[in-house]
């Protein structure tokens, strides 16, 4: 998903937009940007600084600077939860753990092998179960006897799920087992950072209440989730952009902009 946040000089959010990312990153980046400008009732020329982050950061032709999602997430999470020490982000493509000290990112881990332990895993399995992704959380809350999913590979886990279905195991117990599997995989990775509270959980998967519960259970501590867990990276990018702009202005220096264009470009034209 591609997200845009437009922030004013006081840190107020003027616009917040999300759209699906296709293979044509560049076109989509432009489209969501235009939508955000419309929402904020601003023209592109009125935007002082643009930071692009995430996997598509190099494909945003109108950005002044690229900063990794790790730095941006950390900044966004700190703005919402100043006492955060560990941030766990599970998105569609990857899962990451951030270690934060006094508001600064000091270490991080990312999954580097496959899609198990990411949102994609839940998407694939939800399709196999014939339920909507958004319904998984509520379904799992009814579970009384969750199953163990032993396979960490998405494809093999799917086969395991199908075998549970054919055994007549209730859907909620299978879904709760899946949430447990994805969570324990991510927690195992994040433990390398030595977990300390406050722990904040973000990313699209944090919208799934079942995973949030499983996360608390696996960590054995409270887990804080922002109201809009999808936007922390974009918020962080906007804050960093605001700081860079204000920093340059206070020193009387020009804002370090790149030549930018807001027009439709595609990979395939």
């Amino acid at each position, binding site marked *: 998903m591609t997200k845009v946040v437009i922030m004013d000089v006081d840190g107020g959010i003027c616009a917040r937009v999300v759209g699906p990312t296709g293979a044509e990153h560049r076109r989509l980046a432009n489209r969501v940007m235009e939508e955000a400008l419309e929402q904020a009732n601003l023209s592109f020329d009125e935007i002082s600084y643009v930071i692009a982050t995430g996997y598509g950061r190099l494909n945003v032709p109108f950005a002044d600077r690229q900063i*990794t999602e790790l*730095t941006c997430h950390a900044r966004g999470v700190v703005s919402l939860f100043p006492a955060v020490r560990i941030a766990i982000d599970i998105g569609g493509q990857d899962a990451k753990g951030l270690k934060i000290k006094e508001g600064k*990112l000091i270490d*991080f881990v990312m999954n*580097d092998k496959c899609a198990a332990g990411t949102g994609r895993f839940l998407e694939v399995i939800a399709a196999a179960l014939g339920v909507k992704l958004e319904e998984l959380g509520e379904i799992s809350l009814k579970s009384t006897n969750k199953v163990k999913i032993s396979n960490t590979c998405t494809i093999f886990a799917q086969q395991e799920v199908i075998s549970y279905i054919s055994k007549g195991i209730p859907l909620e117990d299978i879904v709760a087992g899946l949430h447990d599997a994805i969570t324990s995989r991510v927690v195992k990775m994040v433990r390398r950072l030595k977990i300390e509270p406050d722990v904040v959980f973000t990313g699209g998967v944090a919208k799934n209440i079942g995973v949030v519960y499983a996360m608390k259970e696996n960590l054995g501590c409270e887990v804080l989730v922002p109201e809009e867990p999808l936007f922390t990276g974009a918020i962080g990018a906007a804050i960093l952009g605001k700081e860079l702009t204000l920093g340059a202005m206070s020193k009387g220096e020009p804002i370090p902009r790149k030549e930018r264009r807001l027009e439709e470009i595609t990979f395939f034209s």
Partner: protein
Amino acid sequence: MVMESQGLARVREIYHDRSHRVKQLKAAGEKVIGYFCVYPVLEMLTALNLVPYRVFGDMREPITKADSCLPTVVCPFIRSALDLGLKGKYDFLDGVVMAHVCEVGEKTAHIWNLYLNPPYFHFIDTPHTVHKAAQKQHKELLKDFEKTLELFTGKELSPGRLREAIEAHNQQRALVRELYNLRKPDPPLISGTETLQVMVALMSLPVEEGNKLLRQVINEVKGRKDGLQKKTRLLIWGSIIDDVALIEMIEGLGANLVMDDTCVGSRFYFPDVELTDDPLDGLAYRYLVELKCPRTFREAVFGETKKDYMADLDSRFSYLKEYAREWNVNGVILQSVRYCDIHGYEVPQVKDYLDSIGLPSIYLEHDYSEAALAPLRTRVQAFLEVIS
């Protein structure tokens, strides 16, 4: 007459067509012996007029043949090297020397011999500890190596020739250290990418030709005016890097790689061989004790039952602190090809050591595939954001 290119231009030529020169030498009647890793004793080859040629893989070429004779869940570097062998790309070699560097290296040595059957083949069963008994054993193993070489060449290896070869290789080591000194200023005079190209070129030439080329490179680099820019200074540690792809990616993200602890770099070249009365003593010691690859077991105090973890780490890794200080390093990239057990097991300890001396580090695992490097970009960039 066509002028032969010099210095770094020549280095780039060799880097992009590694076997060109040794094939010329072969056509002129010389014999070329391939070797894996850092453990085969090159001086013995040089002393018998054999041209040593380091066997590498190719991370830009998909592995298609090796998977029929090696499991896929082992070191992709070794798989790639064997793959090139099976595709005939090392057919020009007159022989191959391999050592018991790691388990996969050992198994692959015998597979190489079986499938490729080179005219000369020798396997050095290098010990895995540095204790006195192991040193003695290593010397005996080198005597066996000497015998097979004498049998293959029909010549006797005289201590005088061996001494000369040691001097020539020590000369190369001294020149490489001199080149590495040119990475100490800020900004460095030579990039990590260029340095790796020089190392690869040296491992593709007879020692004297390499020394001549190194002198040209050093002079050229010393005279540079429009050098590199000041950037975050990094040290890279870990398993083999024989292609510039990873280094180029890291340097492209806004860092200068100013020092390495890898086997196509300082690990291979920094320790000298001491000229002992029996030259084999100096060789056996250097190639077992002084080469610092994690395939060898080391401990601070032999035989002690209660270990002091930090003292142990210090005895094993304090050279990294020296490197960091002398090359003025801001951070360390620990990297390993996937399934490299020896480096994988070493990482937590190296990381603990670096943490203890306050040097930031990041660990990257990769597939020895140029195309698969992209996901590492975010990690490296984020690491640079964290430390600068």
